[in-house]
């Protein structure tokens, strides 16, 4: 069981990190779009 848990936890960390990075990018663009007319 522990092997699967290890792999799962690694993948989860990677996924959460990626997701919030994408959210951050998403907000960056929203800011740039708001500044432009």
């Amino acid at each position, binding site marked *: 069981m522990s092997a*699967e848990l290890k792999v799962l936890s690694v993948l*989860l960390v990677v*996924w959460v990190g990626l*997701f919030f990075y*994408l959210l951050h*990018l998403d907000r960056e*663009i929203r800011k740039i779009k708001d500044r432009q007319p």
Partner: protein
Amino acid sequence: MSSAQRDGNWFFRHWWKWLLFLGMILVLAATFLWLPVVQRPAWDAATNSWKPEPWPLFRIMIFHVPMSWVATIAFLVATIHSIQVLRTGSRLADLKAATASELGLLFGIMATVTGSIWARYEWGSFWNWDPRETSILILILIYGAYFALRSAIPTETTRARLSAVYAILAFLMVPFLVFIVPRMVESLHPAPILDRRGKMQMDKELLVVFLSSLTLFTILFGWLWHLKVSIVRARDRW
């Protein structure tokens, strides 16, 4: 609308992103915890009979197939926009085609990596030229050449047009690669889950997880693609 107010309903306007987030977590958890381990018949010398034997490695299929699926989708999207470039010559279409190719290359590489992990444990060597993997590798070579071409042309309009032509030519190769190469080389790859007649060989739970993984990866591709396109447009002010 002031940005604060827009932030307020920011959460609701982007519900599907949170859906993607939770969905992926569920799929990950399901493949490793909830799903029953797939059994496969293994020859048991002692009792001279086929005995089901646990096959945990099969889980990689839940990620390998969607990635090569997304790589193919990305190439399709790149070709559609390349045709658009030739028809209308629009810079945006060129940007969309290039971004789709980039993601196609990325997912293609990931599909090859997961594929070779599968090959490593399944057939003993990291790479043994099984046709489905060869096709994806050739596709990656084609798109490597696509970016070499893009970097070799200074003027923007010519670069857009010539890379569009190359992308379309490359897509003409796909039918030859995907359908003909596997048939030529006796295939080591397990009969692909969707075997030729499209009949699923997976039992119900695995199928649910597999299909959701497929859709989630496609949504992820769409989001990455949209993000990259809007980042470049915002940065270059057009």
